[in-house]
């Protein structure tokens, strides 16, 4: 009686639910509504995509030096390539652009190790990038020492200026933002707290345009007679104050996320306020808020375009400027698409990075 039960081999799943067909059924045609939506979007794509691709790639002109090279009716990327130098470096003297390249290069070298988990000296390197590197970069940009030709700030422009405004604004706003956030959390000091709240809410409530306008034309009125700063510096002051308010709110989020026990433990150890904050709370809080800081950095990076309003020519300003050149009239779409692409690359990769960080840092703080 050896009736051993031998199950039959599994039947293959119906052909309609596996492979390409199954995928299509599940993801595109799962119901009547979905089928209609799918067909509609396919139709829209079929109508809109080919002309765009034709314009941007197939019919486009890529090589040449003047608008005469643009004959095929598609996009004229020659405009971008002919003006590429000014878009990147502004009016920085052509023979000095190696200085900007050197800054980019060394910054890349400094930043690269930070992306590897195994690298042991992350904190030190990070501090170097934030505190020492700007001095190096400033010397290279400004010149005037070590035999470097001085380059006035009015000649700075293009992508370089965009990056400079965003990074300097962000780095300078961080300490101010931390102080403001601490002030806002200081419940035992109502006067300080309300001043911080006022400051933060003021800067968050007004548009950056008015801030820039104020810093650009009204700041000298606020200062003692005869004291005046460089136009770029004034824009930077405005941006920093504006950004510090946003930074403060991000940091506050981090401070609030730290369990109360940590504060109490620090108090119990008899640490002074600054030791408690500096050694216990902030290191933990800052770790949580890094993604938030990256996000405000992205926002600031996009907002730097507004400096056009006060006459500084960052990359969008340079493109606008080039579009007014009688030799290149009528290529605004190309110019804007190029600028959009540049911004998109930066912002998209940064936001992906911040999301990845968020996932990575999330582990330690699930409560």
């Amino acid at each position, binding site marked *: 009686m050896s009736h051993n039960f031998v199950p039959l081999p599994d039947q293959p799943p119906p052909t309609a639910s596996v492979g390409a067909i199954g995928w299509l059924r599940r993801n595109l045609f799962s119901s009547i509504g979905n089928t209609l939506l799918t067909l509609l979007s396919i139709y829209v794509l079929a109508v809109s995509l080919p002309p765009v691709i034709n314009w941007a790639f197939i019919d486009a002109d890529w090589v040449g030096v003047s608008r005469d090279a643009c004959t095929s009716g598609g996009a004229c990327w020659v405009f971008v390539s002919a003006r590429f130098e000014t878009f990147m470096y502004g*009016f920085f003297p052509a023979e000095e652009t190696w200085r900007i390249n050197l800054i980019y290069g060394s910054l890349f070298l400094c930043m690269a190790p930070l992306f590897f988990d195994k690298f042991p000296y992350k904190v030190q390197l990070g501090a170097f990038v934030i505190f020492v590197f700007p001095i190096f970069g400033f010397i290279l940009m400004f010149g005037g020492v070590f035999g470097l030709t001085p380059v*006035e700030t*009015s*000649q700075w422009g293009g992508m370089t200026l965009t990056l400079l405004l965003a990074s300097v604004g962000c780095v300078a706003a961080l300490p101010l933002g931390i102080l403001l956030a601490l002030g806002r959390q200081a419940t035992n000091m109502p006067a300080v707290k309300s001043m911080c709240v006022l400051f933060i809410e003021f800067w968050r409530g007004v548009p950056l345009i008015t801030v820039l*306008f104020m810093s*650009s*034309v*009204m*700041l*000298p*009125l606020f*200062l*003692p*007679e*005869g*004291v*005046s700063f460089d*136009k770029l510096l004034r824009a930077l002051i405005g941006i920093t104050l504006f950004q510090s308010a946003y930074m403060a709110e991000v940091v506050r989020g981090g401070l609030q996320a730290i369990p109360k026990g940590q504060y109490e433990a620090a108090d119990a150890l008899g640490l*002074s*306020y*600054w030791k408690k904050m500096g050694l216990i709370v902030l290191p933990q809080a800052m770790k949580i808020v890094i993604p938030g800081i990256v996000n405000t950095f992205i926002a600031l990076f996009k907002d730097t375009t507004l400096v056009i*309003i*006060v*006459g500084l020519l960052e990359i969008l300003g340079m493109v*606008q400027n080039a*579009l*007014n050149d*009688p030799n290149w*009239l*009528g290529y605004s779409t190309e110019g804007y698409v190029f600028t959009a692409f540049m911004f998109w690359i930066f912002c998209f990769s940064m936001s992906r990075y911040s999301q990845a960080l968020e996932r990575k840092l999330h582990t330690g703080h699930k409560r």
Partner: protein
Amino acid sequence: MKILRISVLTAVATAGMALVGSAHAGTTFDAVKKKGFVQCGVSTGLPGFSATDDKGAWKGIDVDACRAVAAALFGDANKVKYTPLNAKERFTALQSGEVDMLPRNTTWTYTRDTSLGLNFAGVNYYDGQGFMVTKKLGVKSAKELSGAQVCIQAGTTTELNLADYFRANKMEYKAITYDSSDETVKAFESGRCDMLTSDQSQLYALRIKLADPSSAIVLPEIISKEPLGPVVRQGDDEWFNLVRWSLFAQLNAEEAGITMKNVDEMMKSADPNVRRILGVEGVKGEFLGVDDKWAYNIIKQVGNYGEMFERNVGQGSALKISRGQNALWNKGGIQYAPPIR
């Protein structure tokens, strides 16, 4: 303790700053002399008046006004730094001290002269507001343009004149106001508006920015007086005098026939008027607080008024504007400068 110490320090420092603030107050003249260059407020780009060439150097009548002042003060016309300003920012920038002088094709008006804390140092270009339309519109006079959409630059007297003109002629219009002249031209070119209005000189300047300059015409009507000149802050007479007489020196030089080329020979001239202008005899530069050769430096480095005009907006330029009202008084124009004596 630390907190206390820090806050005491901050308080003291702030109080100190407040004290320092009141301690030094100087005139623009001294301040400019000390820093070694003239900070010059110019337009963001208007060919013939102030615009950068393809090498990024500033050129134009208004630029030369600053260069003349620098030549008079420092003996070097290149000691100028430029701040491009749009029409909106210009007065605030001058009032706040961001720039030392503002020769930015700015119209001399009663309100500006009296209520803004500014002084107009003279007129370096007599202008009037006009209209530019596309040829295919087929109009001969601005009077045919009722119901038109007009492109205009923000913060200018033209905005007011336009309103006056249409009101006076009982016509309707829509003003589309842009921040910069570049945008105005772009909008005009795209057909966003039927006409563009601005000072006539600017219309010619803007027309060469069109892809096809011959597609637009400038209508004959001139609807306003627009005396353009360099502006300085009020209450700063030394500086005001320098700016004003730098312009007058150029006009006097043209009248006396002193040019960039012959100025060195003219130094030996027997004509007492020429000798006075060039500071060889009679008047002294110290009345202005500058070197005796101040006028010589202006003429040598910037040229006389006529040369400056022809080079920037006249026959020597792409604009090809005729002298017209801007000829000297004895040649049918109204440019007239008080004598140097």
